[in-house]
Structure formats: structure tokens, C-alpha cells
């Protein structure tokens, strides 16, 4: 099949609209077989705006509110043209508001000029949710970074969206609490971004993803009104708009304040590193631990290649001769934790475990985690670039899908490294490559498609925690019917009938056929 490179793809505005009708057919689930023999979904198109709209008056209006915090310099535009994904968009104006009122005014000015907007945090998202397409005004929340109030009586904290995840937890830890979602990017990712993506992390196995940890959100809606979704009471009245907003990737408005729930720090923690001579035994141990009725705080797996590169990078004492390691963390009251350690030990011993290393103190625990959390950076030791995937499969299918991942990587002449949240079946295959190599991106994307297809065929889903964004938008039809997606879009439309907020994300354009979105993309935006 024809592979679309992630290069500048020229597409006319009318073509965009035309694709609305046809893409429903494209999303019939008969996957095509490509040259490598792997079933693949329809080809994926990426749009890059090669000509942007005139914006002089718009910029003047924004500057009247923001002064020099409304920018169109090359530095900002380069920075905000992309995010943590490999997709490239183009920014033309970047705003750095400091409070809700400024965000509200930016949204009003955008509406006045008939321009979409895109709110973003640190831009660590891996699915292209913050990549500007459709020439939106960028609303960067970096300067909205205050922890407004820590309310221990209610066990919540009100924070601005630009507060970094780890900064919040550092602030809370001395008071006996933390914010449970802990993405690997937690040193740099923002709470607003966590809300937009309903982010996860290793400890979400036991504690749940972001949605379970957000009580209320102050939002500037796409029509410029300001409201609070959810509240601090146990059962806010009406429909759960808060739950709908979390994970909507900025397509329903801009979060300007977030009330996050505080989780008490566990009185006891034990961290174990188990090594296995065969990755299959490691995966079987994962299933058996859960089946034994134990839900560890975290249950992470790394394959042989991951162990090698991580060990060379951080010297955590990972066993480089092992085929796989499991990093298991148990937390809670001491009795439950010790019981958990025994369960893990006895299950692992039934599955040919090699060594079981129990961290003796906090320092050793942090060292073991350092290996896991730096795994992605360590990939640079073998290749300069990588593409990190994110799918979920039933735990029982981990071995089968891992096998396929290796075969797919081989077939496309790529290196696959696996570091993932095994406890909830959340695979994160890393495809390492060198972007200077000619034609390599086509292979990376084709392999990615094949991995997604293999995961879905095993009863899995498109994404565990990275979101749909732009990257997986056109794969939604592999899991959902046109009618399912149209229903999702009707709900989005209740917030943003004209598609002003982060346009072209989450749902394939086909699902928006009936709405008036296209009319609001200014002339010249698509060339």
C-alpha cells in the first residue's frame, strides 16, 4: 500500500471537506495487507500548513491585551510548531497569558477574527494533540504556574494549568500527600496537559488515571464564557461535564484552574526488581500476580534491549544477562505490603524467576526507578531518534503481541525496545531510528500501524494514556463505527459547534461531515 510520509502534504481546503464523506468508507475495518504481510489500517495523512493566514490585525488586538506576551518571533514559532510527537505543524502566533481573564480575552479576540485556538502545556504529548493544524492561535499556559491553594480539609489543591506535575507532588509530599498520576514525563509535563490527555503513569495501575483525581476544572469555553465543571462536593448536580472534559485534548475549551485530589502518601513502600531468563515467564508472572488478587502500586516490564541500554546509561545494577525484568512496587500499610512481597515472590518462583532484588532503602528504590524513568532518553545510545507507541492489550495477550512487535520491527528493519506498564497491559514499544536515513520515517509509520493493528486484533485498544491527538485520529475507525464517532462528535459540538478549539484533533474529519467546521478555516489556511 502507499505510505504517506510525514512530509509536507499539500491538500486543498475543498479536499479536506471532500474527505469527510469518503473517510467513513475508509474506516470500514477491512485492513489492507501491505507489502510486509501485516494487516494495516488505512493510510494516514498529515497536514502541514505551508501558507499561513494574514494576522496583522489579530496580533495587534492580542498585543493590546498581552503586550509582548503575544509573539510571532521565529524562536516561539519554532518551539510551538510541534510537541513530543514526530509530527510537525506550524504556529503563527503564540500567546502567554498569566490568568483566566487574559485567556478569556484571547478566545474572544480569536472568535472576532474567526480564528481557531490551541491551548498547550509543556508539549510532552506523544500523539500530536498540541501540534498546530488549521493555523490556530497558540495559548501556552507556561506562565500560569501557581499552586493557588492546598486545601487539606477537602484533600484537594487548586492549581493553574501550567504547574508541573512533579512540582505539585514536591509541594505536597512534606504535608503527607501527593498527586497520583505520574507520567514518565512528570518532571516537565503540566497539570493542564495531564487533564487534556487524561494522563496515566506507572502508579495508575492501583490509583487510576487523571480523571479519577480531578474534582473540578475552571474552563474558558470556546464561546468565551468562563465556567467551572464539577465542584468539590461529592455529587455535583447534572451531567458529568468534568468527566467529559478530562481527556478531550483541548477540543472543548481551555482549562484555567484545576482542583486536583490529593492522595495520602503510603506508610510503607517496597520496590522489587525481578529478572527472568525468558520474557514469556516475565509476562506470565504479571498475569499471575493480578490473578492472585494483588494489585501492586506499579508493575513495569523491560525487555532485554531496554535493560542493556538503561544499565549502560544509569548503572542501576540491572541484570544485563536477563531476557526481561519486572519492576514491582507495593505500597500501603505494612502488613499488606509484606503480604504482597510474598505473593510476588511465590508467583515469580513458579515462573522461573532468576534473582529477586528488594530495594533496601529509599536510595536504592530511587535508583531502580531512575532506570525505568530514563529508559526513553537512554534509547539515544543506540539511535538518535525514536517513536514511542502506546497501545493496550489484555494482560493475557502480552507475550503474543510482544512477539509480533519484534517481528514487525524486524520486517521493517527497525530496532524495537520495550519498556511498559505491564500490570495494565499498556505496551510502549519504542522504535529507534536515525532520521537522516533515507525513507526511514515511512518504515517507522508503517511499523507503527502494524503494531496498532496487532494490538487491536488481540482485543486491545488504540491508546492507553497518550491520547488520540493527530497521530491516532484516523485509526479511530478501527475500534468505532461511523455512528459511534458521530455520537462522540455531537457531544463535542455541544461545547464547540464551530470547531474553534484545537481543530482537527481526536476524531477523523469524517465524523464532522455534517457540521460547519470547514467554514471557519480561513481562506488560505490550506494550500
Amino acid at each position, binding site marked *: 500500500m502507499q505510505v504517506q510520509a510525514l512530509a509536507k502534504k499539500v491538500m486543498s481546503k475543498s479536499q479536506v471537506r471532500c474527505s469527510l464523506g469518503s473517510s467513513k468508507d475508509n474506516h470500514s475495518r477491512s485492513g489492507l495487507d501491505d507489502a510486509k504481510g501485516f494487516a494495516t489500517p488505512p493510510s494516514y495523512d498529515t497536514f502541514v500548513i505551508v501558507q499561513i493566514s494574514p494576522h496583522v490585525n489579530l496580533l495587534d488586538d492580542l498585543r493590546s491585551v498581552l503586550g509582548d506576551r503575544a509573539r510571532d518571533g521565529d524562536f516561539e514559532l519554532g518551539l510551538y510548531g510541534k510537541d513530543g510527537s514526530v509530527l510537525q505543524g506550524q504556529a503563527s502566533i503564540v500567546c502567554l497569558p498569566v490568568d483566566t481573564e487574559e485567556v478569556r480575552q484571547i478566545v474572544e479576540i480569536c472568535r472576532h477574527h474567526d480564528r481557531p485556538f490551541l491551548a498547550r502545556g509543556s508539549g510532552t504529548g506523544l500523539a500530536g494533540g498540541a501540534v498546530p493544524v488549521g493555523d490556530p492561535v497558540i495559548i501556552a499556559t507556561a506562565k500560569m504556574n501557581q499552586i493557588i491553594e492546598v486545601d487539606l480539609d477537602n484533600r484537594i489543591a487548586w492549581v493553574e494549568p501550567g504547574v508541573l506535575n512533579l512540582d505539585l507532588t514536591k509541594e505536597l509530599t512534606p504535608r503527607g500527600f501527593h498527586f497520583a498520576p505520574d507520567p514518565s514525563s512528570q518532571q516537565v509535563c503540566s497539570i493542564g496537559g495531564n487533564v487534556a490527555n487524561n494522563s*496515566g503513569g506507572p502508579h495508575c495501575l492501583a490509583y487510576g488515571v487523571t480523571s479519577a483525581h480531578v474534582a473540578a476544572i475552571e474552563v474558558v469555553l470556546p464561546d468565551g464564557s468562563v465556567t467551572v465543571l464539577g465542584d468539590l462536593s461529592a455529587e455535583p448536580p447534572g*451531567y*458529568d461535564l468534568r468527566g467529559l472534559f478530562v481527556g478531550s485534548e483541548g477540543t472543548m475549551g481551555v482549562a484555567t484552574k484545576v482542583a486536583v485530589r490529593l492522595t495520602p502518601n503510603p506508610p510503607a513502600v517496597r520496590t522489587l526488581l525481578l529478572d527472568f531468563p525468558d520474557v514469556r515467564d516475565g509476562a506470565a508472572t504479571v498475569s499471575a500476580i493480578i490473578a492472585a488478587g494483588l494489585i501492586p502500586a506499579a508493575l513495569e516490564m523491560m525487555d532485554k534491549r531496554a535493560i542493556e541500554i538503561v544499565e549502560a546509561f544509569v548503572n542501576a545494577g540491572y541484570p544485563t544477562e536477563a531476557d526481561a525484568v519486572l519492576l514491582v512496587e507495593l505500597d500501603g500499610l505494612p502488613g499488606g505490603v509484606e503480604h504482597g512481597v510474598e505473593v510476588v515472590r511465590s508467583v515469580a518462583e513458579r515462573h522461573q524467576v532468576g534473582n529477586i532484588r528488594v530495594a533496601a532503602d529509599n536510595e536504592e528504590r530511587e535508583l531502580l526507578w531512575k532506570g525505568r524513568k530514563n529508559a526513553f532518553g537512554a534509547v539515544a545510545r543506540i539511535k538518535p531518534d525514536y517513536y514511542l507507541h502506546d497501545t493496550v492489550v489484555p494482560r493475557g495477550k502480552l507475550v503474543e503481541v510482544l512477539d509480533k512487535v519484534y517481528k514487525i520491527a524486524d520486517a521493517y528493519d527497525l530496532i524495537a525496545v520495550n519498556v511498559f506498564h505491564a500490570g495494565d497491559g499498556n505496551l510502549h514499544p519504542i522504535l529507534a531510528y536515525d532520521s537522516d536515513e533515507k525513507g526511514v520515517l515511512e518504515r517507522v509509520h508503517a511499523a507503527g500501524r502494524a503494531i496498532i493493528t496487532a494490538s487491536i486484533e488481540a482485543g486491545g485498544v488504540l491508546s492507553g494514556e497518550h*491520547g488520540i491527538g493527530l497521530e491516532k485520529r484516523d485509526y*479511530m475507525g478501527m475500534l468505532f463505527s461511523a455512528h459511534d464517532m458521530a455520537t462522540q462528535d455531537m457531544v463535542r459540538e455541544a461545547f464547540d459547534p464551530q470547531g474553534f478549539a484545537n481543530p482537527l484533533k481526536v476524531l477523523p474529519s469524517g465524523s464532522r461531515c455534517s457540521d460547519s467546521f470547514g467554514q471557519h478555516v480561513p481562506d488560505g489556511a490550506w494550500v
Partner: protein
Amino acid sequence: MSSLDAVPEEVHKFSAEVGTSDPVTVVGGRTQWNVGGAPDGSAREVVAPSGIWSHEPEEMTVRCGAGTPLGELSEQLAQHGQMVPFDMPSNATVGGVLSVGRSGIRRLRYGHIRDLVLQIRHIDCNGEIVTSGGPTVKNVSGYDLCRLMVGSLGKLGCLAEITLRCLPMPETTRWLTGVTDPFEVYARLYRPSSILWNGKQVWVCLEGVSSDVEAEAALLDLTEVEGPPPIPSDGRSSVEPKALKNLSADDANWIAEIGVGIIHSDKPSGAQQISKTNESLMREIERRLDPRGRLNPGRQVVSL
């Protein structure tokens, strides 16, 4: 296998039963029938399919018809040492409990029931099947319609099939009671399952391995009891957890969930206010998903 392949025959039958034109109301176990007001008498009663369609203990997920009674679900899960902590009567249905969206008295530890929902299939106002969420224990699958459906009283669609995350049953469950300050109890314990208070007496539920439950119980000067007190059911109001401190022991019969913010009482309680902006968003969602108002007419999620 993907979600699209797996729609059971029973869901198709339910879709035909809901049909396309006349007003319908979905009947579960009628255990919380009056929440949101009685449905119009003109609405035709329909019943969601019942039955456990798959339970994979190793995945800790269960998929069932929305009309499945909780008793049947609990029995199936208990055989494998698992549970879904809904804490509602055994004749209540899974779909009914989710449609009403009220969590049970162990919410303090287990969280809101909506966080246990992985995938929902519902029948929309045109009799069509809509799938949202995903079957795995963790998933990002576009817009989170599952959370929207929980607490929607069937106004946005008729729940047909539910996939839930199960939890391991605790080794030990113990209820304790006595006269003490419930807020101090809350501050002293690590993740208790429930703390109830009627203004004078406190009830605490501790769960986990025996040694932890013993140790936590030893921190409190309380006496062991069989279970929770009778919970008054005529009124239910919701406040910020810290606002419970303002409650006083008076003649009224009430029980508050400390740390959560629910007050159960024997007097009907007034509805909480919804802001104009939120109300209009909610009305827009209703208008888009059920323009003719044929689903559970008469019931109100957005109070007038």
C-alpha cells in the same frame, strides 16, 4: 477481535425493543426509581438485557447486560475472590446503579463508581447501538461518553452492555463503632473504606490484610459491630467534605460519609444549583443526543 465484532445478539434485540419512535423508559430493579422524578406515564417500559457475558478473572474485567442484578454479578465475581464495590441492594441492576450514578458507602476507599466503568454500549434515541470506551483495564478511546452516561438517568441513551473493572475482595472487612471525633479518625487512618457519622456516633470500616486491620483498629477506641448502621434513604445531599464539620447533632436523623461529603437523611433534600452556563451545556447535550425527548421523558437530570 475488535469492539465492532463483539456486539452480542441480546444488545441487537434490545435495540429493536427500544425502537425508533415512541417514548420509552428503562426499568431496572426499581431500587432508586424516584431519583430525578417519575417518568411520564405515557412512556413504554423496556428492560435491558441481563446476563454475565464474559468474566475474565485474570484480566479483572467483567462484561454483562445492563439489566443484570447486582446479586448475580457479585456471586459470579466472589467465586474468584473479586468484587465491584457498588454497595447497593442485590436486586438493583448494574445499568440502573450506573444510570443513577450514586456510589455506595465505601466510596472513601474505592472512589466513584464511574471510575470502574471501562466500556458502555447504549441504544440511542434512534434505536442504534453506540459503543464508547474500551474493553481493557486502561484505555483512551476518544471522548469519554462512559463518564457522561453515568448519572444520566437514561436521558442520553439506554444502557445495554457494561464492561467493568473488578477489584480483589479484601482479606478482612471489619466495622467498628463508638463515640469519637470522626475527623480525627479520618486524619489518623490510611485509606479507610468508610467513616460514617450521625453527629454523635461514628462507624468505621477497615479493610485489608488482618494484621493491618488489627493495627489500624488499635489506633481507635472503638467497639466491633456487625456492619454499618441503617442508612436513611429519603434524602441525600452532597457537600464539600469539610462542610460536614458544620453539621450538628439535632433531632433529624442523618448519616454523613466523612471524607466524601454525602449526607443521607430521612427528609427529602433540595437540589443543588447548576450555573446557567453549565445548564445550557447540559441542555445542548440532551438536545443533540435526544432531540425529540423520547428517552425517559419526565425524569430530570438538570433540575428546573
